[in-house]
């Protein structure tokens, strides 16, 4: 599925800018089709600053990632401080290999400086050696610090990322804590064809790694690209900040890898130089990918030169304009934070102001554009203060996710027969999307609409950055989130009482904390998300349903086992059972038992890790 639209078809004779919006969807992996195997290289920072929680969480994350891999995948681990050690060369995944890796990881100790360049390059070399033509070669670099040894020039490292991507090794990056350079890590991931993650605390590392590995295991199209053929009077730029280069006379925009079923929106900015009246500029747009799953047919667009007055009068396609404006705001934040961090406050403010001026000119009375403008006006104040690491990194990451992911906003036509799963932390995006995919078939069968969206724009960017939410903050968020649909919201932050989830009956919001699961080595975050989605989602189908009335203290491996400890939840997720008394009660409340059972099985499938043959390890 590909759809190409532009904001306006008419051009003045003077120079002008137009936007092209491309909506595409990667195909689902058929049951029988072979999935793309993953060749994963983990590059772990073990410099002195990683000691303690960060290293411990990194090891947990690596172990969890390991357990998600399947037959046909391979994994290697490189660690670095001021020297680089190959902890494990890239090895095909097997029970045996897993045990060796877990053992090797336990020997990790922190200490030394940070030769990020050599560590990361060695990891890429490892992957390069081991990956095959049919696999996805991916290096995940995890660091908490700066590159202060070896190759430290950011531009040079970014060049290497591009060259390595061309040779089949893509790079994703994960930065932890306050000190790392978010500009460098973002650029490495961007040009490296991967994704950038920010974990504000050690506790978030496992969720982020889970998200990255989950995506890498689910790839339908590697090296997806948009190709634009146009005349010499046009310059092309990606508003999603995707790498755009000229190759063989065409503009090539790198979209990276596409997940099975992923919806991606790519917006291109076309800058036209001056031209003569009645001239037509022809643009041809095509897609390509390494696995040949994207449609190959070209789409064409024509832009005609008319008088300035005529061009002004043309009513633009609002969907294209809004998406372009949203992306431009996000890009402004990414640039401005990086400038502020580099000490150039003047340039940061200039960046924001340029954009504000533009928004003021084009907003008119369009409600969505006005909202964007007012938000940016509010956020401008943050750039007048010196760079504060936690707040700056958080804004930067939120904006980056906004650039790269499909618009995470809820549709406006929701009703009480809808379940909305919202993520409040950007690192949870792919985890919630995976959970929704698993539950959707049964939701549809029950006549219930299931939507997912990011609500992180509600979390004030320059606000507090503690790991734990207070009761008041929770109440404020619930008010902002609540709507006609039944909502389940997920955060990585800790609840004030350290409980898993809070149900707010008046607003019909279940607020779930995914904090503190790092100790569980075989938990799948997407399964947790789906479990809570199911538990509360059932409320939509029966007004008398209340999970609290179903919970029973004795352990039956049943959906409604009452769990006080996380270990117990893990067990019940993997058991996937519903006990007879609960089945009877569900039926008496009017539920279609097979549908509920199938939904619960879908959760179990997400929870089931192929390599952990013993439950409750």
């Amino acid at each position: 599925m590909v759809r190409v639209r532009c904001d306006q078809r008419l051009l003045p004779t003077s120079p002008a800018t137009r936007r092209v919006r491309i909506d595409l969807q990667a195909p689902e992996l058929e049951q029988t089709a072979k999935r793309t195997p993953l060749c994963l290289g983990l590059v772990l920072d073990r410099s002195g600053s990683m000691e303690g929680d960060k290293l411990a969480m990194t090891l947990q994350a690596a172990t969890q990632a390991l357990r998600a891999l399947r037959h046909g995948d391979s994994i290697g681990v490189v660690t670095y401080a001021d020297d680089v050690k190959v902890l494990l060369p890239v090895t095909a995944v097997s029970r045996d290999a897993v045990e060796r890796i877990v053992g090797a990881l336990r020997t990790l100790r922190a200490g030394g400086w940070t030769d990020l360049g050599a560590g990361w390059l060695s990891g890429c070399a490892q992957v390069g050696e081991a990956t095959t033509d049919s696999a996805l070669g991916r290096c995940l670099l995890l660091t908490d610090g700066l590159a202060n040894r070896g190759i430290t020039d950011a531009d040079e490292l970014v060049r290497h990322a591009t060259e390595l991507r061309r040779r089949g090794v893509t790079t994703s990056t994960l930065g932890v804590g306050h000190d790392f350079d978010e500009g460098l890590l973002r650029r490495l991931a961007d040009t490296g064809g991967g994704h950038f993650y920010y974990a504000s605390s050690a506790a978030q590392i496992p969720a982020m790694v889970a998200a990255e590995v989950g995506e890498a295991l689910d790839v339908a199209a590697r090296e997806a690209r948009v190709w634009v053929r146009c005349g010499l009077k046009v310059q092309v730029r990606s508003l999603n900040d995707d790498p755009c280069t000229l190759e063989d006379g065409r503009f090539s925009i790198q979209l990276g890898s596409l997940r099975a079923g992923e919806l991606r929106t790519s917006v291109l900015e076309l800058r036209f130089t001056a031209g003569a009246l009645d001239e037509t500029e022809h643009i041809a747009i095509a897609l390509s990918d390494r696995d040949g799953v994207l449609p190959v047919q070209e789409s064409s667009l024509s832009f005609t030169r008319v008088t300035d007055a005529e061009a002004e009068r043309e009513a633009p396609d609002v969907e294209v304009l809004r998406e372009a404006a949203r992306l431009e705001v996000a890009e402004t934040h990414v640039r401005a934070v990086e400038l502020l961090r580099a000490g150039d406050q003047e340039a940061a403010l200039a960046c924001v102001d340029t954009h504000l001026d533009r928004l003021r000119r084009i907003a008119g009375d369009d409600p969505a554009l006005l909202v964007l403008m007012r938000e940016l006006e509010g956020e401008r104040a943050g750039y007048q203060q010196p760079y504060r690491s936690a707040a700056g990194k958080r804004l930067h990451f939120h904006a980056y996710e906004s650039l790269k992911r499909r618009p995470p906003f809820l549709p406006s036509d929701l009703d009480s027969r809808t379940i909305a799963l919202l993520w409040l932390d950007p690192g949870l995006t792919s985890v919630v999307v995976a959970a929704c995919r698993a539950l959707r078939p049964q939701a549809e069968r029950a006549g219930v609409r299931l939507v997912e969206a990011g609500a992180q724009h509600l979390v004030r960017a320059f606000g507090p950055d503690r790991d734990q939410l207070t009761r008041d903050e929770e109440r404020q968020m619930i008010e902002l989130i609540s709507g006609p649909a039944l909502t389940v919201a997920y955060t990585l932050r800790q609840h004030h009482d350290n409980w898993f989830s809070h149900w707010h009956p008046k607003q019909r919001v279940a607020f779930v904390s995914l904090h503190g699961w790092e100790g569980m080595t075989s938990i799948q975050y997407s399964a947790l998300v789906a479990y809570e989605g199911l538990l509360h989602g059932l409320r939509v189908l029966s007004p008398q349903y209340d999970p609290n009335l179903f919970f029973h203290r004795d352990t039956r491996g049943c959906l409604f086992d009452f769990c006080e400890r996380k270990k117990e939840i893990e067990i019940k997720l993997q058991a996937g059972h519903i006990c007879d008394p609960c089945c009877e009660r569900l039926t008496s409340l009017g539920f279609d038992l097979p549908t509920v059972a199938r939904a619960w099985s879908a959760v179990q499938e997400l929870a089931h890790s192929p390599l952990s043959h013993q439950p409750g390890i």
Partner: protein
Amino acid sequence: MLDLNELCARTGVTARTVRYYIQQGLLRSPGQTGPGAKYDGGHLARLLLIRRLQQEHLPLAEIRKRLQALDNSAVEQLLKQRPARSSAADYVRDVLSRSGKGVPSALAARASRSEPAPLDRSQWERIAISPDVELHIRRPLSRDDNRRVERLIEQARRLIAGEPGLD
């Protein structure tokens, strides 16, 4: 001669895309259309080459131009060639040695190998005798050696397990 399904299965290209290529002049029409259509080795080879050139991100117009200039044997020749760009590992070795950085030992060992030729790489097989004892065998073995190895494994397993062996 292959039918459309077989052609698709062998090349990993969908039927729809094959028809598009024919329509765009990249492939000869199979003569007879419909379910009876038959594709020959020339079709197969050209389709494989189109796929590879597509993976290298060449536009269709360029691919068509190149293919028109080639006869079937030339297409086969091109398919046999490997792409010219250096591997990721070689690129990294180059960068690290230029920056004066030592290369981690696991990479250095491979650096002494000549240009990578995947088909020449030896296959070592690991056979578990017991959880803590393995036998490593480089394939392929001669038939006699195979038989000896089978006996060796059987003996070794018995020995480790503490059972009476044949010695």
